[in-house]
């Protein structure tokens, strides 16, 4: 098939400015993670293998643990809802908001909410919905999409942000000092927290034994969003359940270090239900929406290990392809190695369109090496490449292999071709007006052709021995 893959095209067209932002941000993340893990643990590998086995156990018994989490939450006074699809999740949340008469809310960063494009939907339906994470707030002002799981604006620099603040009236003048930018957002957002009637959050973990949700933020935005409002809605992927509260120690220690090189994220919040009679603050109503949206399809696939993911972004930081191409090149909520596996199967109907993502990897294995839950991402990428092949999904830029198969299975033709091909060294084939060849050479150079030299050497060697 003629052409180049969409992800390659994106990497080719990306601006130098954006690419440098991504490379700097992601490589810094990789370095910090490495130093912190190895400073604090003699054998960090043992910890991540343990985390992987807890996750595998949970996924293999997901029905039991999900039912247990539901039961715990209900007995704590929370309301539990289920959503099979993105549309179900959006409608469920809208119905809850209408039930409580909510017209204004803040939302702390949630990949699950990104996945279902919750913000634009709520705004269309008359609910003011403001992102409170600084990065996500800027994304929302720009009508952009996050390009990293943990650092949503890794692709932006301070000048772009200062221009956005000026354009949107967050600031009266242009100032690109990061501290000034942060202070201006602080003033703007705290007024919004106080006006809001509800908060929407995700959840990093849900403990089945107690129903307790663990939520982490560095900025304190989920805590601030939750403090003054009467309604809390948590949108949670069904794979976020873990068996027991004590398992949190394993995951929290890995999450902060893998994501941002911190032992713990600054605000680690544990919420198990609405406020109790003895508490002066906090939401009176708590709703938990457990969302499937393709996760059970992933569970039924041969890539189920990807459901172990705790969304730390370490694989994005370390990936040479992600660094060059940026998260947006993956054209879905999840970019980088985790996205290359998750997106094509989570959004199953888009598989043909996203089938290039698993191919955008040199299979170097760095993503598996840094993964806090030891997901064998390179193996999963190969399984998805195989799936695309079996389903005969056309692949841009793929070279037809059948002529090679003929050559390689016929010794005589092979021998002749080897010698004849030396002519390629003298032909201007890189500039030949043949589109597929041009695309192919657009990203590669061939070494000088030595066809037949090895055969000649073998033959001479045999002759001299005799």
């Amino acid at each position, binding site marked *: 098939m003629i052409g180049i893959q969409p992800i390659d095209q994106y990497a080719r067209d990306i601006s130098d400015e954006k690419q440098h932002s991504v490379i700097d941000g992601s490589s810094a993340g990789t370095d910090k993670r490495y130093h912190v893990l190895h400073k*604090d643990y003699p054998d960090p590998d043992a910890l991540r293998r343990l985390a992987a086995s807890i996750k595998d156990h949970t996924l293999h018994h997901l029905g039991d643990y999900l039912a247990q989490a539901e039961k715990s939450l209900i007995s704590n006074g929370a309301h539990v809802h*289920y959503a099979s699809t993105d549309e179900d999740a959006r409608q469920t949340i809208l119905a809850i908001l209408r039930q409580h008469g909510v017209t204004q809310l803040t939302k702390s960063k949630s990949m699950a909410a990104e996945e279902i494009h919750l913000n634009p939907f709520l705004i269309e339906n008359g609910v003011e919905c403001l992102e409170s994470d600084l990065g996500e707030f800027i994304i929302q002002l720009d009508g952009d999409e996050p390009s990293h799981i943990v650092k949503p604006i890794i692709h932006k620099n301070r000048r772009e942000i200062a221009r956005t603040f000026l354009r949107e009236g967050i600031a009266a003048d242009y100032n690109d000092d990061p501290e000034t930018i942060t202070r201006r957002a602080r003033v703007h957002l705290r007024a919004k927290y106080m006006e809001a009637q509800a908060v929407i959050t995700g959840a990093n973990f849900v403990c089945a034994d107690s129903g307790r949700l663990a939520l982490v933020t*560095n900025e304190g935005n989920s805590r601030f969003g939750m403090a003054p409002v009467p309604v809390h809605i948590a949108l949670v992927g*069904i794979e976020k359940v873990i068996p027991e509260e004590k398992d949190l120690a394993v995951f929290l220690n890995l999450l902060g270090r893998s994501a941002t090189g911190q*032992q713990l994220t600054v605000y680690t919040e*544990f919420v198990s239900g609405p406020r109790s009679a003895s508490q002066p603050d906090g939401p009176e109503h708590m709703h938990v929406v*457990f969302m*499937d949206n393709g996760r059970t399809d992933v569970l*039924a696939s041969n890539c189920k290990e990807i459901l172990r993911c705790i969304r730390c972004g370490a694989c994005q930081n370390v990936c040479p392809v992600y660094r060059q191409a940026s998260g947006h090149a993956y054209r879905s909520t999840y970019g980088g190695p985790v996205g290359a596996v998750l997106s094509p199967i989570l959004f199953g109907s888009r598989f043909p369109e996203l089938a290039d993502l698993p191919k955008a990897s040199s299979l170097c294995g760095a993503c598996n090496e840094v993964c806090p839950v030891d997901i064998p991402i390179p193996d999963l990428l190969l399984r998805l490449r195989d799936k695309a092949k079996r389903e005969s999904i056309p692949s841009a830029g793929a070279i037809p292999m059948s002529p090679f198969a003929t050559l390689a299975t016929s010794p005589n033709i092979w021998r002749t071709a080897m010698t004849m091909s030396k002519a390629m060294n003298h032909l201007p084939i890189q500039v030949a007006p043949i589109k597929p060849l041009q695309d192919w050479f657009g990203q590669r150079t061939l070494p000088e052709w030595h066809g037949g030299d090895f055969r000649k050497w073998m033959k001479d060697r045999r002759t001299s021995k005799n």
Partner: protein
Amino acid sequence: MSRAAIFAKIESANAALKTKAAYPEYDMALVHSAPKLEGTDLWEIFARNFAAVNGKPMTGIDQLIDFLVLHQQLRGYCDPALYPHFGQKLVDAGLTVETQYDRERYDFYQFGITRATGAIAESGSVILDDDRTSHRLAALSPWVHVAVLERSEILRTIPDAIAAFGDSPNIIWATGPSKTADVEGILIEGVHGPGEQIALLI
């Protein structure tokens, strides 16, 4: 309807498994970070790790007053239960102190002094729990948050703190001041919550 469909799909996906992974029994010592736990005195371990995340450990009210005056943080809130301990000292130093947090005037409060439920030595975290923290916003909206704790409330490790959850529906571990690195990876403190996190031992 969604509920039944989701559970049916989980059931059918997992029915195909030949073997199911068992829950791994593990020794909690595996998750302890030995370098973080070096030392014997829990306050000293806590103070070292808390300072490493830019928290400010303090051992006396005079130290706190000096800090507030130096940084011109002169108006604030104090938990009524703590006021008898040092309220008068704050007032005598010229600070304005309220024991009722008025959310309509959230910008008025430059410092908030509230009760911590405990602290985690291993991670340098203060534990705030609404059952014993008088006002959640008072711990969050002022630039300076002072979490007051007693020596006996310091827990050694993260697993110890999890085991001590109890049945409180909302618990927070604050490990340093509010921070972000969203803009070009540059660390800025005081995003939404406090820019100064103090732990005051009484």
